[in-house]
């Protein structure tokens, strides 16, 4: 199992073994599934129940990428049985070579991009800390990842001259958040209503909950002390603007 690093409550105590992080205690989208129509119920239920084998990545590649995913989309606060699969979803996309409709002209194909990035991250770990990336402490792993996030790989690696680091980072983030925030347990965490057909919503204004939703109960928490991924006060937008193919908003 990968290395862990726990956030902690402002009032003290680690946040760990939670079955439901977030501010909506007792809220469950899956508890509403009898109110969804069949196609959606089947799809979302399958998402919760399925386990996918790793088919695209080798064992070594999967181990490294698992450590990356654990830092990029950390779930250390979640209890073992309630962690959301990310790596297997990403592996499935690459196994099927499902594209998002385009490729930047300065990027290699998605499958190749991931293999190159895995190689680069391992080489960076070896050069900087003389250890394999998955064996590094959480803090050291994040030092490397933060340098990719910032678009300034430390140490430099020739792969990032062939592949723009900000584009790879955006693709990695997109894959991770698509897996995480399409899972009903993440909807419970953030208080999203989830599928709502055929029932719909009736309280549109003022942020009021539907009878089956829950009101927010906020609590303060802090990122792990050794983490570098907390929001920054004046986080400037990346220079390169939109990097994603997310659904048309207009």
């Amino acid at each position: 199992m990968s290395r862990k690093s726990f956030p902690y409550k402002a009032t003290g105590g680690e946040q760990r073994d939670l079955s439901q992080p977030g501010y909506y205690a007792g809220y469950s989208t899956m508890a509403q599934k009898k109110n969804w129509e069949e196609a959606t119920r089947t799809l979302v239920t399958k998402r919760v129940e399925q386990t996918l084998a790793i088919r695209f990545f080798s064992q070594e590649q999967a181990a490294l990428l698992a450590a990356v995913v654990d830092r990029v989309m950390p779930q250390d606060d979640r209890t073992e049985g309630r962690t959301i699969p990310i790596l297997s979803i990403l592996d499935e996309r690459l196994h099927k070579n499902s594209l998002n409709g385009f490729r930047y002209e300065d990027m290699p194909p998605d499958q190749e991009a991931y293999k190159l990035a895995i190689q680069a991250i391992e080489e960076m770990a070896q050069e900087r800390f003389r250890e394999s990336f998955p064996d590094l402490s959480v803090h050291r792993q994040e030092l490397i990842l933060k340098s990719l996030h910032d678009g300034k790989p430390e140490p430099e690696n020739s792969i990032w001259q062939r592949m723009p680091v900000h584009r790879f980072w955006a693709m990695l983030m997109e894959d991770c958040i698509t897996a995480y925030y399409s899972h009903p347990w993440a909807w419970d965490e953030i208080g999203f209503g989830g599928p709502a057909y055929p029932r719909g919503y009736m309280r549109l204004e003022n942020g009021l909950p539907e009878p089956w939703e829950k009101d927010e109960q906020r609590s303060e928490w802090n990122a792990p002390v050794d983490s570098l991924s907390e929001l920054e006060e004046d986080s400037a937008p990346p220079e390169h603007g939109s990097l994603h193919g997310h659904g048309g908003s207009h």
Partner: protein
Amino acid sequence: MPHRLGPMQTLPSPMRRFKENETVDYCIVGVGSAGGVLVQRLARAGFRVVGLEAGPFWDTEKDWVSDEKGSYELYWNDLRITGGTHPLALGANNSGKGVGGGSVHWAAFAPRFHPSDFRVYSEDGVGVDWPMSYWDLKPYYELLEREIPVAGPAWFPWGDPHGHPYGPHPLGGVGDVLVRGCTNLGIRSVAGGPVAILSASHGDRPHCIYRGFCIQGCKVGAKASTLITHVPDAISHGAEIRAHAMASRVSLREDGRVDGVFYFDREGKEHFQRSRAVIVSGYAIETPRLLLNSACPGHRHGLANSSGTLGKYLMAQAGDVVAGRFEELIRLYKAPPAHALSEEFYETDPRRGFARGFAVQTVGPLPVAFAKQMVAAIGAWGWGMRRVMMDYNHWATLGVLGEILPWEENRVELAEEKDRHGLPVAKVTFTLHDNDKKLIEFGKNKVMEIMWAAGAKQVVQESRFAHLVGASRMGSDPSTSVVDKFGRTHDIPNLFVCDGSILPTQGSANPGLTIQALAARTADYLIKQGDNIFFSNRRDLTEPGIRYDLSPPYTKFKGNPRIA
């Protein structure tokens, strides 16, 4: 089980099937916003019509879900290459695949273009004038607003002021933020539309239930797509929609007229659909790609490209998203993403130092889309991502919709890479110019100001683009444009283009309604011309006169109110 289009509507059955070697009157490539309207009009007028659609024929009850990730198949996900200084995101951002095309996943904002949009060169010395005026298109705006139909305020004060046939929708949390922010700054706004979503039931379509999954395909059948507004009527009148048919080449005869379309079926087998005329309605990337891939002796650089402008003057609109975090809960996932806007900054204001303008509109990203916006806007990752997403219900999002001018270098070409049929894929190049950059900077700052004025405690923004138009533009001069004002290519008398790609400029209005209005007008022209299209090379540019008897059912007796 019948083929379902929403909970109440079914597909007319059986659908006519033309035989393999039968010649039809019109072969229409792409059954999206424009293709759906064209197929319906031409079938009603008695023509033999086949619509070739690269994607599936959706059964909305079985195929569509209330789920972001599960809606992947709605988009054109096949490979395209994107580049330039400001490369466009494609796929889910702007490209549909399947019957209904982009109208399946549009948010359905349905504002008209302003009269000034048709004469931007005359008025502002930028871009190019259209070969038609707003007043030529106005009757078609009104007609389509009744057909699809559009809900919105009784009084829309900008451009050519007008009302809407269906009443406005109730306000959601994000719309409330837009109205509040605008009001505090003395900016006029409207709410509840204009949006092509039903606020009351219409024939066999129920009204909106405010579930917020508009751009994932409306299972309710309340949001208009040509899949449910025009295609059923087309089939009732004898049209064939051939799904999973990927057009590969338009075939040119020795006499300089086209005689049909080659396409691949689902199994990869090639077929030829013989037709007396061809209309390409594949949108701003696939239309030029098909015509470029149809190059042949005499047309070395693509069909209908004697001007050399095919694929050029591609446009996207500035679509910067401004997100504001509020103390109170917003729950932005409720209500249609598209439901309030302001066009107060639409027209050129010389004091701003750039030509043309922008609109301010509500947007409603669901969790995955919002998380992606937080990656771009604040570089969120790790625990920061978890934290900002735990506040998802506290955020509201407004969009800039800004006019980017047509530039020759923004274009669609053929790439080295090939698709599974061996056809070269599209390469899209996009770069912003000085006027565009100034407009975006001003627009984004104005929308951030509105967000602050609404009471946000934190305001961030993501640069992005929305919509695609141009790349086969219309014009009066055959040396600088691809088609005439009715969509007929200057070079080939029985080859037409009708979709967003013919737009010479794009205004700051979402293009969907305009694309459908143009399609209805082209259809009227073709019907009026009758057999001349099939046998004559003479180009008649007289206006056809609008036909009010070709609308789908449930359109009659609806009015466009005007309270002046």
